[in-house]
Structure formats: C-alpha cells, structure tokens
C-alpha cells in the first residue's frame, strides 16, 4: 500500500528545545492512523510541519508524494485540516462559518446539511452560543467539506459526547473505505483503539512505538489478579516465564503477563484460589508503561 504521508528524519528545534527528534513515520493511504502521546510530545508539531505551517529544522515531510514544503496550493486542495483550537466568529452562524470556510477551497463542497444532521449540529445558531462539542462539530464538517484525500485531525474527538464520537468514527471509517487517509492525534488512547488501523506513539518528540493497532493489542499482554485464601510467596510466580511483574498485597497478587495464562493457572492451583480475573492491558496502561520505561532508561 502506498504512503499518503511520509516523514523522514523530521527534527524541529526551538533554541535548545526539541519539538521533534529525528521522526520517521509512514501513514498508509486509506488508513486511519493515530498519533498518540502526552501533552507536548510533538503531535501538533508533526501535523503543523505536514501542513507547512511551521518548517522542520532538518528532515522532510511529503504528502501524496509531494514535498509539503514546496508543493503549494494544488496539494493543500487535497488536504482537510481540523486544528486543536478552532477560531470562529462568535456572531456568525455555523452555516455562515462553513460557507466562508468552503470559500477558501475553490471547490464544490459536499452536502453540508446532511453532514451536520449526522453530527447533530444546528447550523442556524451563532457559533458564540455553541458548546465546545458543537463548535468541534463545525470544525469537523469544515475539514470534510471539500472531500479531501488526506484528513489531518488534531484531537478530533475533543469535547464530543460518546454518541457523536461514534458517528465521527463512522464518518472517518467511511472516508477511509473510499480510499481517504485519516491522520489524527489523541491523548485518549481508548479513542485510538476504537478507530485506528495503525498507531504511533510519540514521547518528547521521539517515536517510541509504531505498529498495527491489533498487533499492539495482541502484544500488549494481560493483567491478572488472583485472590488467595491465604498469603502466598510471590517468588513462586516471579520465576514463571510469561510473568513480567508481580505486585503482592497480602493475599492478593497482581501479575502482568504476556502469552498464555496456562502455566500461571497451574501454579496458582497449588493454593486455594478465591478469585481469578484476567483482562488485557488497556492502551493507556501500555502507553504509560512504554513512556515510563523510556524515562527509566533515559534516567
């Protein structure tokens, strides 16, 4: 599959502060790719370089095969952008706002009313009267207005209630199924898990992980909690190959494992087990683990 966005050796430096460090990343055409990371990790910086709003100190970004620095208007006509903070005219209605935004793109626009209805956005109210979530909907409609080939969405689900968020995800999945590419950022990892095909984790401007979201989920391991009738020796469990970490608290053990739970169950069965729960790690926990490990390694 071709790449819609290619970032090569992207570094952004402000004085001695690094916004990005040597970032290599591919966003496959027709995929929904999520960029996740804590605040200040470089998500917005990456998107702003892709849009040529800011320039990389070194390295380059290409979109649909064109260098984003030099491609100019023809390329930007194919890109839809939702900024993290959408600047709107308080007195204008959502419809007026969208008509104006559409006028920036010299292009026939899609059916705004239908899209607004799907997102439950009232087009006739002044933007100043809208809640944060409704303002966000205006931005989402505006990013989709000219049917762009590449969508760059900075925290698209921010402020949306769960129902609208689900509608947004289906809009984005539909776009991807028509061959559009969606490149979005989020710091809510559950969102990324719901919608993305691929995920890239940034921390302090560095790419710390990048993979297919399912591979991520499969590889991320499980959290097992066992309540015993009497305290047990955690050392009996630490030696098991698939156990990475054991936290003992009285008669309770919490274990982080990867792979099959079979050996663990057999080891636990030697004692009287009161309760046994096993669940996959959330991306949140995994993300924290990835970032924390890096900090330990760096420190």
């Amino acid at each position, binding site marked *: 599959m071709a790449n819609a966005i290619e970032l090569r050796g992207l570094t952004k430096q402000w004085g001695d502060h690094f916004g990005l460090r040597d970032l290599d990343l591919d966003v496959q055409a027709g995929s929904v790719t999520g960029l996740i990371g804590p605040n200040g990790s470089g998500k917005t910086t990456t998107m*702003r370089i892709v849009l040529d*709003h800011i320039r990389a100190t070194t390295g380059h970004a290409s979109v649909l095969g064109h260098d984003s620095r030099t491609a*100019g208007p023809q390329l930007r006509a194919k890109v839809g952008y939702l900024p993290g903070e959408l600047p709107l*005219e308080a007195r204008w209605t959502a419809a007026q706002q969208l008509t104006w935004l559409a006028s*920036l793109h*010299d292009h026939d626009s899609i059916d705004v009313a239908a899209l607004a209805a799907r997102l439950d956005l009232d087009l006739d109210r002044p933007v100043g009267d809208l809640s944060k979530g409704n303002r966000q909907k205006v931005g989402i409609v505006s990013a989709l207005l000219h049917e762009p080939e590449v969508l*760059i969405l900075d925290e698209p689900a921010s402020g949306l209630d769960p129902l609208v968020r689900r509608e947004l995800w289906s809009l984005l999945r539909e776009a991807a199924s028509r061959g559009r590419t969606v490149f979005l950022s989020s710091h809510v990892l559950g969102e990324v898990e719901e919608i993305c095909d691929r995920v890239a984790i940034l921390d302090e401007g560095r790419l710390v992980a990048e993979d297919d979201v399912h591979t991520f989920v499969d590889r991320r391991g499980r959290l097992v909690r066992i309540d015993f009738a009497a305290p047990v020796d955690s050392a009996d469990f630490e030696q098991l190959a698939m156990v990475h970490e054991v936290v003992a608290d009285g008669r309770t053990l919490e274990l982080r494992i990867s792979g099959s739970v079979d050996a663990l169950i057999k080891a636990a069965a030697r004692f009287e087990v009161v309760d046994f729960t096993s669940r996959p790690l959330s991306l949140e926990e995994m993300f924290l683990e990835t970032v924390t490990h890096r900090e330990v390694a760096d420190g």
Partner: protein
Amino acid sequence: MGDFPILIRALRVRRRGLIGWSVGLALYVAMMLAVYPTVRDDTTFDDLLAEYPEGIRALFGGDVSITSGGGFMSAELFSILPILVSIMAIGAAASLLAGDEERGLIALVLASPLRRRRVIEEVSAMTIITVVVPTTVVAVALLVGGPSVRLDLAVSKAVAACVAVAVFALLHGMVTLTIGAATGRRSRAVAVTSVLLVAGYLAEIVGTIASWAEPLQAASPYHHLIASQPAVDGFATVAIVIVLAVSAGLGVLATVLFDRRDLVA
C-alpha cells in the same frame, strides 16, 4: 464569494467599526463647519495667533491664516484626522494579520489552497479600504457642507488633504502589517507602529521649535504629508509618491518575511 475570501471576511467583521468611525468623522466635520462662520468673520483669531510663540503657531498651521477655509480645516481637522485614520489602519492591519494568526485563523486559511502571499495581499487591500472609506467620507462631508457656511476650500485642495491623510495612514497600516508579518505578534505590531506615529508627530512639532530636531522633522512623514498643509497648498506630489512607494515596498517585504517563518499558532 470565493474570489477574495480573506477580504470578504475582513469586510464583514470590520464593517461596523469602519462605518462607526466614518459616521463619527462626518459628525466632527459637521461640527467644524458649524463653528467655522464664527472664525471666518472674526480676524482677531489671526491677530491672537500672531501673538503666540512660533511652536504654538505651528500647531495651528504656522503663518497660514486660520480664518481661511483651508487654514481653518488644516488646523482643526487635518491635523488630528491623520492620527485617527492611522489608528484605524493600525488596528485593521494588526488584527487581520498578527491578531488572526495568534488565534489560529491564519493557520486555518493556510491549510486551504491559498498562498501566504494572498493573505498579505488581501489584508493590504482591507488596510487600503480602511483608509479610503473615512477619508472619502470626510471629503464628501466637506464638499457637501462647505458651501453652506461659505467655506473657501477648493475641491482640489479638499481632495489633496484627504489623499494626504489616506496615504499617511496607509503607511502606518503597512508598517503594522510588516511587523505583524515578521513577528506574528499583534501587540508588538501595534506598539512599534504607535511609537512611530507619535514620534513622527512630535518630530514635526519639536522640529518647528528647536533646530536640533530638524533632521528628525525631515524624516517625519507627518511633516511632508500633513504639515505641508495640502488643504492650503494642494497635492504634495513628491511626498505622496515616495510614501506610496515605501508602502508598496513594505508590502513586498511583508510577503517575503511572512513566507519564511513559522506561524505562531
């Protein structure tokens, strides 16, 4: 819509302010016209001014008779109008470029096929409209209301004075635009240009009184465009051409500077 989206938006968001200022200026002209007959028929005003020190006289237009239509309007209208219209131009240029950049609107615009150069061009166009509208209103008010109070101000002189004001204000708008293009900071663009505006005015006043300030006066656009009293002496063609050329040059400079840098938001 679609051909000049930035200009069209600028007109919509700044329309009320522009109309309000223009109505205010028209009322000011009407008030001056209402006062004029008192001055016109009383030559003691000229005698009174002759008693004043040179510096004070300079504020009222030097040795030109204040009871003449051109002299009166130079002293009472065209001395303050350039400052007011400049403030309008500074406000428009600052908020439409650096101000809109700070709130992320320019980034949104530049995610569309529009080039950065177009942003500078359309904001420049709005700056021109911001100086042309109020000066046209003043010119029309003078030409319509003048005859009723027997204001001896020729059409060409009134137009010359209004053109001078527009050109003067445009220069300050373009300085603001250029600083905004270079820095992306609204407050910095306003602050620097305001200092230049006040400095140019003070240089004219001080230059009239103190010889050491004459080089400063010679560098002041206020001196060449406004203190030359176009309402009395007609078009200061050379000054107008130079200032327009400088303004155009600033537009080019702004384009280059804006194109090279990172957006601030």
